[in-house]
């Protein structure tokens, strides 16, 4: 085999800050090569460097050869090389497509750029079919397609020039679980059929394991490990790779005390309808985000709500904590009936929510102490000294130091911020905590630590959890009971072991089928 891409001693830097250092690797013709790394590892920059698309502010040194020849220096020649021989698929299919142009035109444009003599009109339907779209989709604008369809358009565009190399940079991270799997399988199939070389870049080790033959692990701009996928992922040599691999296997935690059967929260026939506003929407059918849902959570239980994006699970969580109100139905929290936002202030301290995005959940202008102290307004009788004790207690309970209370949010990493978000949720000593995708915005290597922390806090403070998530593995490890939601309704219920071993509902079966296989050593 000969190498299609040879990277020799590549270094990329922004000003004085190095982003990639001393990277050397080769991608053989026809192989499927994966690059694994967390955010900031330089994996995307490597892809951009191969395609000659590095940002203007980046400085590059080292050599990259494509099919034996160095990359052309001339911008036009490099552009033609990209157009004819390299196809690229990016992470965010919404912003990667021109919003003002029909997708068919955008694909045809790629065909013309690759080969001026091409007859796009004849080839377009075949290409659309190959990526699983119908001819009618060509006339749509990007915003009229779903995320998965948009990504299929991107793939069609990358294939338009019949390239030798396809670079896919996190092609599925913006998609929901079921679509993710479909798109991954599509990329795999096409590469096999067309005997195309694939460079697949992802933070998701299991996706790389499922798709690639060889893998490179990148960490902070340097190559950590390189070799056949099976060897690297089942017998990792380096500590960093071992940590990454370990993080993909969430170990089920041991329950100390079994949950008591008496309910802490009961939800009866809850419905949330969203209506279009104004006269023009009069008479339209309202959208039922949550449709006649009933459930109950026992004291000390950990209940999980899973489902694809848009199924209403977040809306349900928001009503439970009182951020939104139900259109019909009722909830009862420890004897207090409410419909959402009307939850009495005295009760609010017993309920809290941990938000998904650790970067948006803190006001950048307030110190950590100010932000953590905010929920203490719900306990007006707290003495100032007691307030301070509560803050210190909360921040140490999540494994951070009291000195950090005086700092501002931008001084913390994503994992630390999520710990702070948990501390804020704990400061009023609540009984029920709703966790909305508590780890999905975090890097893989810190997810395990945060989950351990959540499990420990639950044991220490006899907390009741409601986890809202799409991550089946995390749910399987954490939850006592799982509810599966689709289009506003709960469609299946059970313990994780029973439910995932024998899914009965179509959605649960699809979710299970979309799960990528574990890495087995």
């Amino acid at each position: 085999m000969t190498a299609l891409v040879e990277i020799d001693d590549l270094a990329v830097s922004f000003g004085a800050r190095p982003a990639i250092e001393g990277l050397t690797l080769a991608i053989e013709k026809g192989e499927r090569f994966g690059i694994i790394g967390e955010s900031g590892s330089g994996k995307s920059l490597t892809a951009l460097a191969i395609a000659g698309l590095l940002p203007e502010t980046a400085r590059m040194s080292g050599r990259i050869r494509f099919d034996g020849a160095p990359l052309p220096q001339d911008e036009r020649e490099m552009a033609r090389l990209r157009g004819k021989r390299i196809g690229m698929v990016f992470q965010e299919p919404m912003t990667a497509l021109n919003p003002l142009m029909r997708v068919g035109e955008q694909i045809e444009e790629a065909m013309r750029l690759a080969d001026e003599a091409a007859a796009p009109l004849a080839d377009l339907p075949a290409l659309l079919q190959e990526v699983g779209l119908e001819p009618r989709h060509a006339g749509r604008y990007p915003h009229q397609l779903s995320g998965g369809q948009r990504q299929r358009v991107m793939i069609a565009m990358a294939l338009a020039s019949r390239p030798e190399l396809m670079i896919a940079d996190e092609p599925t991270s913006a998609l929901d679980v079921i679509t993710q799997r479909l798109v991954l399988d599509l990329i795999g199939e096409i590469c096999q059929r067309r005997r195309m070389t694939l460079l697949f870049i992802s933070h998701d080790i299991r996706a790389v394991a499922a798709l690639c033959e060889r893998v490179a692990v990148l960490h902070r701009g340097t190559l950590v490990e390189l070799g056949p996928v099976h060897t690297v992922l089942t017998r990792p040599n380096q500590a960093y790779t071992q940590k990454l691999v370990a993080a993909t296997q969430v170990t089920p935690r041991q329950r100390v005390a079994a949950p008591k059967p008496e309910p802490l929260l009961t939800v009866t026939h809850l419905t949330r309808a969203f209506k279009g506003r104004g006269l023009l929407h009069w008479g339209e059918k309202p959208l039922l985000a949550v449709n006649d849902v009933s459930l109950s959570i026992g004291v000390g239980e950990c209940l999980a709500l899973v489902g694809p994006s848009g199924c209403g699970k977040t809306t349900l969580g928001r009503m439970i904590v009182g951020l939104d109100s139900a259109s019909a139905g009722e909830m009862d929290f420890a004897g207090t009936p409410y419909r959402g936002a009307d939850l009495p202030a005295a009760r609010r301290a017993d309920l809290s929510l941990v938000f998904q995005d650790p970067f948006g959940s803190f006001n950048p202008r307030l110190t950590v102490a100010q932000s953590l102290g905010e929920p203490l307004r719900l306990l007006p009788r707290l003495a100032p000294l007691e307030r301070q004790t509560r803050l210190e207690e909360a921040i140490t309970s999540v494994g951070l130091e009291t000195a950090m209370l005086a700092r501002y949010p931008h001084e913390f990493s994503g994992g630390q911020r999520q710990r702070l978000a948990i501390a804020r949720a704990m400061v009023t000593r609540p009984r029920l905590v709703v966790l909305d995708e508590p780890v999905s915005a975090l890097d893989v290597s810190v997810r395990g630590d945060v989950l351990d922390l959540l499990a420990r806090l639950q044991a220490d403070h006899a907390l009741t959890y409601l986890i809202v998530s799409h991550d089946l593995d995390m749910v399987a490890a954490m939850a006592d009971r799982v509810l599966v939601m689709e289009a506003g309704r709960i469609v299946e219920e059970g313990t994780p072991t029973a439910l995932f071993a024998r899914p009965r509902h179509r959605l649960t079966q699809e979710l299970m089928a979309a799960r990528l296989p574990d890495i087995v050593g």
Partner: protein
Amino acid sequence: MLYLLRRLAGFALTLLIAALVIFVLLDLLPGDPARFILGINASADALAALRLQMGLDIPAPARFGNWVWSMLQGDFGVSHTQRAPVAKLIAERMAVTLPLSVFAMAISMAVGLPLGILAARHRGKPLDTALMVMAQGGVAVPNFWFGMLLTLLFAVTLRWLPPGGFTPWYEDGWLALRGLVLPSLALALPQAAILARVMRTALVDVAGQDFIRTARAKGMTYGEAIWRHGVRNALLPVLTILGLQFAYLIAGTIIVENVFYLPGLGRLIFTAISERDLVLVRSATMVLVLAVSATMLVVDLTYALVDPRLRERRA
């Protein structure tokens, strides 16, 4: 379609409320408009006659309704001081003001947009810096003062163009056009500087977006990607600014007419103010408000034409 209806309804509502504001200011606040117009020395007979002419004997809400209704039929009332129908007076003056603002807008777009694109294409290079320094100066120049400078150079020193005054179109179209050259330039160049800056910012912003990278990945150079995919997207924010600019421009003509002694709407209004001709001021400001709102409407509709996302937005 739905969008069009909504926007038209909004346009009509804005105009109606604007008419109400003007009516309250100029018809109700002065107390007795007839006395306001004629002054304290007016005879009782003259007052009574004017009151009757202005319809002051009927209640205010009905008067407002009548005013709006007759405006819709093209009747703007009769000017007491000029002793002529207001519609005719305004139409005469629009023959100067309208071409002036349209020329100025056309020149500012023809100069500003290409320069903005040029600067964005050469971002960070000397050409960009030079253009943006010029634009920074252009933005700061008051248009009427710029008009004075232009007169000094082209009319007094070089004697290429008339320093001021206006020959009506029906007498000599060529002379009329020549008379509008300097005023149009005076209005247009500061606007062009603003447009160049906005166009550059918008394009630089679009250049950083993912779909430009996609276009380059398809085989385009940076320049080709900007031209094929960037400019059209960058025009969206520019359109919004364009609408506002045209509104400023209409206001600007009133000021610049003064420099060149042009018989436009502005001078009609100033005469009306000094002679306390409420009827004339009322209708003339309504025409100006109509022009500004109509511009914004056209901008919004163009926006919807360019952006498919807006066409379908329902709420």
